[in-house]
């Protein structure tokens, strides 16, 4: 009898755990909508008078009115680049209370403000067709680096031709297609200079190992360090130690948790999120209904990529009260986890209009889960679920070409060559480098090439040569 009562105690604990689970249940309350008063907070001045005036105009708009305003941007004399900048800096609206609350609760404002923005170095403008074809030194993938003309550095010795410059490179992920191509681009640039010797170390997604590699570079007194920090917080102190030891440190892509880093090469996270939001609204408008239920499949909590992209995506959506975020799932940059999350979403929600993935894995996992659940065309009137993908792997761009993804907003790993050139300029004192080197925004990719709020997209064929990862065949 004693054992039976103990067993009952344990079952009671199980019931209690489930009660907690049940209380925190996944069924979100329906999206609440705001009134028709001025919806946006007082927009902060961006320094661009033209855009600031537009933000004043859009402040009181929502739904169809906001849509009409967005559709008229081209007629207001904005260039493609200015239209994208308008959406990137668009203030949050209170029109959709659920989204506005989520934006505040998750601290997206802080991420948005701290992420480097501004003009490209020396006003660089990227043009289609430019760049250099290479075979990835590590991956052996056929790649085309799009920005080899940016912060250009001629082939041959750098600085003092008689000196060997030792450069440490620390990142995570020879086992990750995006990251191995990141390492490819950095090594390709270093190999163009015979007096540059690099030591590439993989921290294998372990922040402690990342820190110990940094410390070993400091002990070796390398001339400079190029880094890919996975997350912000734990990467700050090792970077600080290197800088205090007089070693310049340059980050590429994500940012480290310190303001004292020598230089940061940042990608187009804000543009990715804003473009995904623009596309979602444009597509819904094409279909004639601005009401939609959205599932967000997201990268790890706390990563710059996730927060900045999601924040900018939500800002655009916040003007539309008919949008409901059903659920937001995080994974650990792992497609299998993202797949399980997508399966759960499909199980929990009989109506899903949009899957928004904050990375390559997430949207691809959602697509496979949707196909397996036979839900691809499960929206009202048999319409196809909309997949918004980010990160331009060959696999993802092929899905756009095949009409399975509606859009891809490219984000390339092939920017670490810029970081290597910036670092070499700093190490050799050849040129003054800015603290923040902004990489150009890339137009989104749609199957046939569309004009979205006045902005021309590119087709999969136009962007394919710049994509990363192995080809499907």
């Amino acid at each position, binding site marked *: 009898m004693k054992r039976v009562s103990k*067993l009952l105690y344990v*079952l009671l604990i199980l019931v209690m755990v489930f009660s907690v*689970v049940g209380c925190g249940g996944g069924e979100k309350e329906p999206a609440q909508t705001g009134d028709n008063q001025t919806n946006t907070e007082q927009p902060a001045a961006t320094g661009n008078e033209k855009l600031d005036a537009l933000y004043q105009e859009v402040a009181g708009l929502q739904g169809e009115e906001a849509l009409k305003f967005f559709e008229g941007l081209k007629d207001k004399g904005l260039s493609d680049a200015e239209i994208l900048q308008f959406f990137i800096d668009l203030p949050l609206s209170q029109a959709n209370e659920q989204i506005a609350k989520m934006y505040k609760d998750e601290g997206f404002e802080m991420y948005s403000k701290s992420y480097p923005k501004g003009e490209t170095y020396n006003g660089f403008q990227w043009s289609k067709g430019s760049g250099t074809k290479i075979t990835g030194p590590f991956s052996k993938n056929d790649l085309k680096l799009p920005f080899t003309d940016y912060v250009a550095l001629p082939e041959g010795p750098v600085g003092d031709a008689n000196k060997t410059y030792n450069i440490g490179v620390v990142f995570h992920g020879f*086992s990750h297609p995006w990251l191995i191509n990141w390492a490819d681009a950095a090594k390709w640039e270093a190999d163009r200079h015979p007096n540059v010797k690099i030591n590439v170390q993989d921290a294998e997604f372990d922040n402690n190992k990342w820190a110990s590699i940094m410390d070993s570079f400091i002990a070796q007194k390398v001339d400079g360090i190029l880094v890919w920090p996975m997350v912000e917080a734990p990467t700050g102190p090792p970077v600080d130690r290197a800088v205090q030891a007089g070693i310049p440190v340059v980050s590429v892509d994500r940012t480290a948790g310190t303001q004292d880093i020598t230089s940061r090469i940042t990608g187009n996270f804000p543009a990715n999120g804003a473009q995904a939001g623009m596309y979602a609204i444009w597509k819904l408008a094409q279909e004639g209904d601005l009401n939609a239920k959205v599932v967000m499949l997201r990268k790890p909590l706390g990563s710059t990529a996730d927060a900045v992209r999601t924040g900018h995506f939500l800002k655009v959506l916040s003007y539309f009260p008919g949008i409901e975020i059903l659920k937001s799932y995080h994974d650990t940059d792992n*497609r299998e986890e993202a797949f399980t999350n997508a399966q759960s979403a499909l199980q929990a929600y009989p109506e899903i209009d949009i899957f928004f993935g904050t990375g390559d894995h997430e949207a691809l996992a959602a697509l496979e889960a949707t196909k397996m659940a036979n839900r691809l065309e499960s929206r009202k009137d048999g319409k196809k679920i909309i997949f918004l993908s980010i990160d331009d792997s060959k696999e993802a761009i092929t899905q756009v070409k095949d009409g399975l993804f509606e859009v891809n907003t490219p984000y390339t790993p092939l920017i670490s060559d810029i970081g290597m050139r910036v670092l070499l300029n700093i190490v050799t004192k050849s040129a003054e480098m800015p603290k923040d080197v902004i990489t150009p925004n890339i137009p989104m990719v749609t199957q046939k090439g569309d004009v979205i709020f006045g902005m021309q997209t590119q087709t999969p064929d136009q962007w394919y040569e710049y994509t990363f990862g192995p080809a499907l065949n």
Partner: protein
Amino acid sequence: MENSVVSSDLDNGNVKKAILKNHTFILFIILACVMIIGSIFVPSLAQKGNLLNVLRLASIVGLAAIGATVVLLVGEIDLSIGSVMSLSLVAGGMMVGYGSVPALAATCLTGIVLGIINGVLVTKLKINSLMVTLGTMSVFAGFANVVTRGQSVFLYDAPFYLSLGRGYIAGIPVPVIIFLSVGILLSIMLKYTKTGKEIYFTGANTRAAWISGINTDRIKLIAYSISGLTAALAGPLLSSQTNRITPIQGVGFELSAIAVAVLGGTSLIGGKGTVIGTILGALTFQLLLNVLTLSGVGTYMEQVLKGLLLIVIVVVYQIVDKPRK
């Protein structure tokens, strides 16, 4: 052995005590409770589509757990299950261009070979299996990355390969059929064959088994080969879910496999456990995960609750196993 404990209790006529001491029975009760209570809080849990999905995922982790069970039964441990899965998947992936069947054959063969390597290291070099498989876990995982240079192998042009993880036969997911087939075969082997009995004897007391004429090294080698094969078999079922093979596909899988085996009532010190228990363990494990995911507690809270629930269940086993004063 659990079975012998039950029968001895039955001999004493204490049926109630025997049932309460049976881990499989307890697990069945827990599974039923999870199902009933979970369905109350998460209505979509009991939907047919969801249950089929739970069965599919339980089959993948369950297959690997069956191998882990056999190794635990001989009193050893296999921490390299995830890496065996990765490397055998990658080996098979290199053959995908020649068709699905050669790819799957290469996957299974590699799994067996890697299992034999583990077995040889444990038995011939007499190194502790925890350390051996900790080492091979790293070696095999490293090789998987070296061979592929970190790249994925896509499966878009391998429909048969994909159907292993995604297909249905008579409305039942293919992974479930594979899982149950392997489970039943191994269950019969363990219960009715001489080798099966020797596996239990070796784990219960290796020295006594050796003295009684059992070739314990051979038995351990067989156990590791089975573990290698089941880890390799689980790989294609997992990779076909996401249409690609990656060199890190199996990372962390060993912990789930061992957790499921222990959840199923397999003793960490050997000689006690059943494949049926592991099958139930896999179902319970996956159902718990499913409840947590569907209930929307969030990925990170899921980890906390998953760990806590595993501990609770193992505590239950300890309570019922404790001899009466």
